[in-house]
């Protein structure tokens, strides 16, 4: 994984000698190249989907309740995708997010049962996040210091965390009967469920972290050019550990959310969420080779997938047809995004 090469597209460009340009064209180009501009294709794709939804399902789609329902569903994989965005920007991958979520949910529920006496429910949240962070730290240390490829490390963690969850829970689902916790996770503020607020907060925090802090800057630097980051004095290994911990933390937060949503902890929570998260991140325009990515894109990616699921549901489509359509729409979304974001293809063949 240390073989990070710079994308071959950027070979030898030196337009430093100022070239006269039509100012409007220049402004449009600058916008399209900006992070907002890169996402415009996704926004278009999302709008198209919303139109399709409204046309095919009318008020059932465009109602406040339905929007909340979409967002509630989106919020859990959404939170995971934010952590995943960092990992992928840093040039890594985390296949273990779903099963770490499952493990966190189990440990937190068990703790709740044990600690029912004290009744201080925020401890559940702390425990869920701590379990996630721990799993992330193990991933990070093995990857950064053990130099095992991220794909294998997190695949191993996927197996191990799920299995540990099964052993701990003895494969039974554990109900969460902690009133305070359930009230918190199921409550709402200004009519918007707390689950959605949690996603909003994580997404905003993620955006700030990525774009406004040294942490984010280092993450982009490492993913963009591992060697250059190292030679600029960044402690690359330590930072990679932090990045995987961050991903574990988002899994822990998602575990809290799913506990609230389902009221139960089970080792099967989060199965295959890694695929959903990676897909949202990639559709969102983050490069799988690292070095570039956007939180806004990821959020749009998550929304696109969840609106799609909702439209299928409302239109009562045959499951298999759904899957085929979903496949086609993934391709279409990526194509739309590329058409808008591409700054002119430079290859000929």
């Amino acid at each position, binding site marked *: 994984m240390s073989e990070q090469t710079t994308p071959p597209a950027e070979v030898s460009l030196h337009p430093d000698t100022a070239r006269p340009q039509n100012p409007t064209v220049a402004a449009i180009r600058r916008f399209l190249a900006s992070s907002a501009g890169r996402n415009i294709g996704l926004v278009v794709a999302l709008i198209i989907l919303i139109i399709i939804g409204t046309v095919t399902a009318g008020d059932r789609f465009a109602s406040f309740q339905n929007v909340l329902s*979409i967002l509630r569903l989106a919020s859990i994989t959404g939170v995971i995708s934010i952590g995943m965005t960092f990992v992928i920007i840093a040039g890594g991958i985390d296949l273990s997010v779903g099963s770490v979520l499952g493990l966190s949910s189990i440990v937190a529920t068990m703790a709740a049962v044990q600690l029912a006496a004290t009744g201080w429910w925020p401890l559940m949240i702390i425990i869920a996040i701590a379990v996630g962070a721990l799993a992330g730290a193990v991933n990070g240390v093995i990857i950064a210091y053990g130099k095992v490829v991220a794909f294998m490390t997190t695949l191993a963690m996927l197996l191990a965390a799920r299995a540990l969850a099964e052993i701990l829970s003895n494969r*039974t689902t554990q109900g969460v009967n902690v009133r305070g916790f359930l009230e918190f996770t199921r409550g709402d503020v200004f009519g918007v469920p707390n689950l959605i607020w949690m996603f909003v907060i994580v997404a905003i925090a993620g955006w700030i972290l990525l774009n406004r802090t040294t942490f984010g800057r280092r993450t982009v630097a490492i993913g963009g050019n591992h060697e250059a980051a190292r030679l600029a004095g960044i402690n690359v290994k330590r930072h990679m550990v932090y990045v995987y911990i961050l991903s574990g933390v988002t899994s822990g937060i998602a575990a809290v959310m799913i506990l609230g949503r*389902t*009221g139960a902890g089970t080792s*099967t929570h989060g199965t295959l969420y890694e695929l959903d998260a990676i897909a949202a991140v990639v559709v969102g325009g983050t490069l799988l080779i690292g070095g570039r990515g956007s939180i806004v894109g990821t959020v749009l990616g998550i929304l696109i997938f969840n609106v799609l699921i909702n439209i*299928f549901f409302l239109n009562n489509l045959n499951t298999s047809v759904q899957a085929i359509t979903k496949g086609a729409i993934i391709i279409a979304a990526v194509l739309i995004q590329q058409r808008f974001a591409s700054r002119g293809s430079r290859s000929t063949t």
Partner: protein
Amino acid sequence: ALLTGCTAAPGTGTQTGGGTVEGNEATGDTIVIGFSGPAADHGWLGAINSAAKAEAEKYPDIDLKIAEGTNDASLQISQVEGFINDKVDAIVLLPTDGAALTEVAIKAMEAGIPVINVDREFSSTFAARVTILGDNFGMGVTAGTYICEQLGDNPDAIVAEVAGIDSLPLTQQRSEGFATALEDCGLKVNNRVAADFTIAGGEAVTSQLLQAAPKIDAIWNHDDDQGVGVLAAIDAAGRDEFFMVGGAGSRAAMDAIQADSGVLKATVIYPSTQAADGIRLARLVAQGKSLSDIVEVEVPSRIVLNAPIVTKDNVDKFIDFSFT
């Protein structure tokens, strides 16, 4: 009320009940029923879906909405939310995880929508108007008892078990029931492997199992769908010193039992018509009708389905209700 065996012949529409049958069959107000279940990623679940659909098609007064099958509790919750938003008249729910879907089911009930809970039970009685359960523990007991009967005189007999997906509670329950029944006759499970309810998975683990156990007297395979693979592996290994008991009751398994040509001698029914029953009951509940075969004025709240054993002797009785 506990009712066993009454659903041995569902879907035929020709029950021989009292005078209420015609009343129940008579077309009433059109009702919208929402159905959500786990991903139809194997034969039994596929059969659950198609039986539900077929059942709904029989009644002109049912408008069935089937949500995409999923193994993700969170997505299933949102499907039920969707049904509530849509104000359907009844919901038939085969939850991917009973406890995890309880809360949203209660929400539906509170919104005045009766919920019919199928196969995997909610953790609260307030979550469902009617509960129809297959009996996973009982399935294991039936299989174990049958094996005991066959091997009872041999306390050293080697018993093997090919389980389904180990992380599912239902697999646990089946295994527990099996072990309990074997204990009664002094046997135990000597070799246990878990597949994944798929044919290829069944084949893969069984070929390994046969290596691990050079001599076997009886095998219980939890699921006839993966059983196709289990039998293929047994075939390939050329082993026939044991007999095998299946599970769920697929057409292929019953054909094999009827033909009595291989090691498969029996299978334990796990009704794949539960959801169809659910649809039927949902219609009755939503239309305010009662169950025709019993004297109750209303539909009962809890029905546990039997898990009978099918052998060469009684296969004729069951074969028409098997799933493909």
